[in-house]
């Protein structure tokens, strides 16, 4: 919990939101397609072939209607012994086409299933892998709900786009083009007439979607307002009850509810009349073609026959459906692209950089000399490979030094000024001061959650920027005020600190943190499942687990940020023992507001507005009668005392 957390909440669009404005829709589209084709090239080529095949089969079927009446039925009318064999032949041929069409459709559906789900799986994995590598700053400056919704809403709209929209639009376009081609063969003037009517349809659709789009914007904003109010009221419902504020809440709710109703009604109404309008325009187109075509056929204009008119009208009828589909899919593709935009934004976020080359290695004694070993030993060293190839080992002791460190979460605002600190190995350094003084910020710098702007931080004399981040963090243990546990058993949560720890080590760590007792009382002991961030444990129990997790990692440097703040003073006394055992022999940075936690510190830093204003041990600071004295006694110190 950085003290300077900037939370940016962006309004999210619902599934039916207004048409989003995108800067480069085509670029986005091709990037999405790039992902699809990257891993499923062959499948996608086959799918396109399938679409062509099924459209072709379908068109053949429609053509069959023309030949059915003109070439087979009409000639047979009036014959005493009509010969059905040509009809049978034609039908057999069409049946084969149909069969091919069905086969292609089936193959397409199966291929698309694997392609869509496979692509999404890869995309999800890539997103998560990338996210894990992002710097803490990303998580501090983006609303968690927004990050989550990339995985849920955005991926989901993308799924619809890949699995349905794209194939449907492709299918529709190919259908329309081939129908137009067929229609052109039958009659050029009627084709032009039909295309003109399509223009009218597009015009009407554009008009209607503009009106409904406007109303969807209104609906979204009203929905947002109402949801905000609901969220606020629900989270403060107990306060509402205590103050008997129910009637006022209902009154405000009613107002917003009514506004949402009005907007939702209009938005949905205009959206749903699009279908009927297009359908009836399609019928009008049909009538017009029948009239004009009738005139042409009756006058045998350019060899235009009645049968040709009949199949032209069939084409005309099957023409409006794909057009309608393109119109509706267009919108959902744009929605999906807006989601894709957010997905790619996350993927394009710059990952945490790490230029560190100093590694943490195990050492063991051989012939009286310490040498590097792959084995787990008690001895650790920093391995420093110099540019001239010389390898230097330096014993890891846990000495941390801040030299004139300045830091700001952004360039404009410096929150830490000229921090100088010296922590000898094994020392306990306490940071006290009011909220926003910069205590947590300091700890965020040691493990390089954030990088400093000025000055140097040295760990065992090495500039921490030269240490590989993973190794640096391995050497630091953290217990934070907001304990986060993971879904899994209690044991797994403790093992988080050291994946290959033995059962004995787990129990020893739990005992050290005084957590063993309560864990054994849980229904399944160490195998009790924790869900929802350990919701089935009390805050104090969760903190004990977090302490056990840090204990098993056995790091030389510990950072405790209000680690015992949620434990009451009597329980804390019990935990304190464990904490003291844990802190023994380790360099420890402690942030706490309880005196009992900090009084025995080797050095106490009093912070105020990003500066260390006093330092010394408990007695020295009391002697000084400064800010520490004031905080400690609750009395205002006299100036100059």
């Amino acid at each position: 919990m950085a003290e300077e957390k900037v939370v940016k909440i962006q309004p999210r669009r619902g599934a039916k939101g207004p048409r989003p404005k995108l800067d480069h829709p085509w670029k986005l589209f091709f990037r999405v397609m790039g992902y699809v084709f990257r891993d499923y090239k062959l499948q996608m080529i086959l799918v396109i072939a399938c679409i062509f095949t099924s459209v072709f089969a379908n068109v053949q079927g429609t053509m069959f209607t023309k030949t059915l009446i003109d070439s087979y039925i009409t000639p047979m009318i009036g014959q005493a012994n009509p010969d059905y064999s040509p009809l049978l032949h034609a039908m057999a041929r069409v049946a084969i086409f149909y069969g091919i069409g069905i086969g292609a459709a089936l193959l397409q559906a199966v291929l698309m299933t694997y392609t869509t789900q496979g692509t999404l799986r890869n995309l999800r994995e890539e997103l998560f892998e990338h996210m894990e590598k992002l710097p803490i700053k990303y998580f501090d400056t983006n609303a968690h709900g927004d990050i989550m919704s990339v995985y849920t809403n955005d991926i989901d709209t993308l799924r619809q786009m890949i699995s349905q929209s794209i194939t449907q639009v492709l299918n529709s376009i190919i259908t329309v083009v081939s129908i137009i081609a067929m229609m052109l063969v039958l009659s050029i003037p009627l084709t032009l007439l039909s295309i003109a009517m399509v223009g009218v349809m597009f015009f009407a659709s554009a008009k209607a979607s503009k009106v409904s789009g406007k109303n969807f914007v209104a609906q979204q904003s009203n929905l947002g307002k109402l949801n905000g109010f609901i969220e606020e009221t629900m989270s403060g419902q107990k306060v509402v009850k205590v103050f008997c504020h129910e009637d006022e809440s209902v009154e405000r709710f009613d107002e917003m509810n009514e506004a949402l109703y009005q907007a939702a009604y209009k938005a949905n109404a205009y959206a749903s009349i699009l279908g009927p309008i297009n359908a009836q325009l399609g019928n009008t187109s049909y009538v017009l073609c029948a009239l004009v075509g009738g005139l042409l056929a009756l006058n045998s204009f350019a060899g235009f026959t009645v049968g040709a008119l009949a199949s032209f009208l069939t084409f005309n009828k099957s023409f409006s459906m794909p057009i309608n589909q393109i119109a509706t899919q267009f919108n959902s593709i744009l929605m999906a692209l807006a989601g894709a935009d957010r997905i790619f934004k996350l993927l394009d976020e710059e990952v945490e950089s790490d230029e560190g080359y100093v590694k943490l290695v195990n050492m063991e004694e051989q012939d009286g000399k310490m040498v590097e070993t792959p084995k787990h030993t008690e001895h650790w060293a920093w391995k420093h490979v110099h540019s001239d190839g010389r390898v230097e080992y330096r014993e890891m002791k846990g000495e941390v030094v801040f030299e004139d460190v300045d830091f700001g979460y952004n360039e404009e605002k410096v929150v830490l000024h000229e921090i100088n600190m010296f922590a000898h190995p094994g020392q306990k350094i306490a940071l006290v001061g009011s909220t926003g003084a910069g205590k947590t910020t300091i700890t965020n710098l040691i493990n390089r959650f954030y990088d400093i702007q000025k000055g140097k931080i040295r760990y065992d004399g090495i500039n921490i920027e030269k240490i590989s981040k993973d190794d640096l963090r391995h050497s630091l243990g953290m217990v934070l005020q907001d304990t986060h546990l993971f879904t899994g058993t209690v044991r797994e949560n403790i093992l988080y600190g050291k994946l290959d720890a033995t059962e004995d080590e787990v129990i020893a760590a739990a005992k050290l943190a005084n957590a063993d007792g309560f864990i054994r009382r849980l229904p399944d002991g160490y195998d009790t499942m924790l869900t929802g961030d350990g919701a089935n444990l009390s805050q104090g129990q969760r903190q004990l687990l977090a302490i056990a997790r840090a204990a098993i990692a056995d790091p030389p440097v510990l950072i405790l940020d209000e680690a015992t703040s949620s434990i009451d003073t009597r329980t804390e006394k019990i935990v304190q023992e464990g904490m003291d055992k844990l802190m023994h022999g380790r360099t420890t940075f402690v942030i706490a507001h309880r005196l009992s936690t900090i009084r025995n510190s080797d050095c106490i830093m009093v912070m105020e507005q990003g500066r260390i204003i006093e330092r010394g041990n408990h007695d020295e600071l009391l002697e000084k009668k400064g800010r520490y004295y004031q905080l400690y006694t609750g009395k205002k110190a006299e100036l100059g005392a």
Partner: protein
Amino acid sequence: MIKTILSQIKDFKFPTIMTPVSMLGEVICEMIIPVLMGRIVDLGINGGDMGFIIRTGLIMLVVAIIGLIFGVLGGFYGARASAGLAKNLRKAMFDNIQSFSFANIDKFSSSSLVTRLTTDVSNIQNAFMMILRMGMRAPASMVVAMVMSFVISPQLASIYLVAVILLAIFLGFTMKAAGKYFEAVFEKYDLLNESVQENVNAIRVVKAYVREDTEIGKFKKAAYNIYLMFVQAELKVATVLPVMMTAVYTCILLISWFGAHLIISETLTTGNLMSLLTYCMNILMSLMMLSLVFVMITMSEASARRIAEVINEESSLTNPAEPKMEVADGSISFEHVDFAYSKTAKEPVLKDIDLSIKSGETIGIIGGTGSAKSSLVNLISRLYDVTKGSLKVGGVDVREYDMEALRNQVSVVLQKNVLFSGTILDNLRWGDKNATEEECKRACEIACADEFIEKMPQKYNTYIEQGGANVSGGQKQRLCIARALLKKPKILIFDDSTSAVDTTTDAKIRTALATEIPDTTKIIIAQRVSSVEQCDRIIVMEDGKVAGFDTPENLYKNNSIYREVYDSQNGSDEADFDEKN
């Protein structure tokens, strides 16, 4: 459950009925058009009668326009009915939630209530519109098309009947099978989302322990599971379109073959054949639509159930038939009170509490986490009902009061307190709607909130963001105290309400309370001994029982728990380093 939802249609019955009626009109028009089309081909084009084409064409246009009107009406009514139902559902839920007791609120978490009021209602709204429009349209269009086909040729139409039955069986089985898979998919989805959420929230822990790779491994496993399940589910659905195509194509071929025979034997016209072929699409497409409606209904079932749960939830606390409206004074007496949060709990949270507090006394309560301090005070303003025994305020059992009258006299500053978006004054006036600015300032002075408010650029008109995000913990607590003071209650309860306020200010607030409202009974729950040591008497709670109730001096002498806490907190001087402002 369905009844509960439908009963909320209320003032939207007319559009609810008119939607399917309009859809029926549209369907009839749609069905007449193919007949007219057939006649144009048969009598007009084949008969060479241009006048007939024009006449029928005009009729067709008129029918199209009527169809359009019905279609538009259906759209409007459908949107109105579904938006209206959504509105009424939200209102019914919200109203009922306002009557919830604390026990009811605990039962549904606030986040689940939010989901029910938002996502679930949207689901129902969409499903309702779909059901009203498609639920009528699809069967109607199927029946009309079927009837028309039978009118044209019963023999050929029976082919459709067989196809429909076969297809319906297939769709039924497929949707059911796919439904099962999709349910499993959504469960897996939840797991995946949980894993992402966990990582987003706990990213500091992940990074601090350098466990990125472990987490990626876990995620990949979950993602692979979803992939497998989803592919299974979608493969089931993938068969639907090819099977539909097979049915349509088979029908076309059969109709063409037998139709040709009938035309040649002159029992059928070519126009009839064309109409029949059009109906083929209508019938089978409607069937598909119908199956989608069923899917929609099953999918919205869960939402409907969750909404109905909230609407049907009865408040566990009710006002008595003849409520007392006046609270005589601020005296409180617990008479052998037991309390448990749920009826099924094995052990009560509070056991045999028996104590009496005089009006105007200042009482401190201390005890470890989980010793039921909050539970004890929550009973006083009847936020929960006692399980056994009796609790009297002003000499009368709290269950005999009108709840609002009682709560106006018993003001609680909750441990987990919230401010609402609005100005500081808006928030303060929760305590008293009609409080003047002067009164608000006075309350803030007592709560020591005036000092920081005066430093804010817009002072009392400073806008507080949702959840009080722009004030610090200590400032929030002081504003909450001021808000409670404005109620001018006879009993004022502070449930660990100054934990984030520094000791100096804490002391100042307590002094101000003692001098400004001496006649109000004050109950102070605190972790710090210094917050309660000046109280008249202190209750020491342990494991849901009163372990001591006496003056601080006597407790120090006789009560080991109190002495232990007192000593651990280092004597008379406060030992915490709390934030200043």
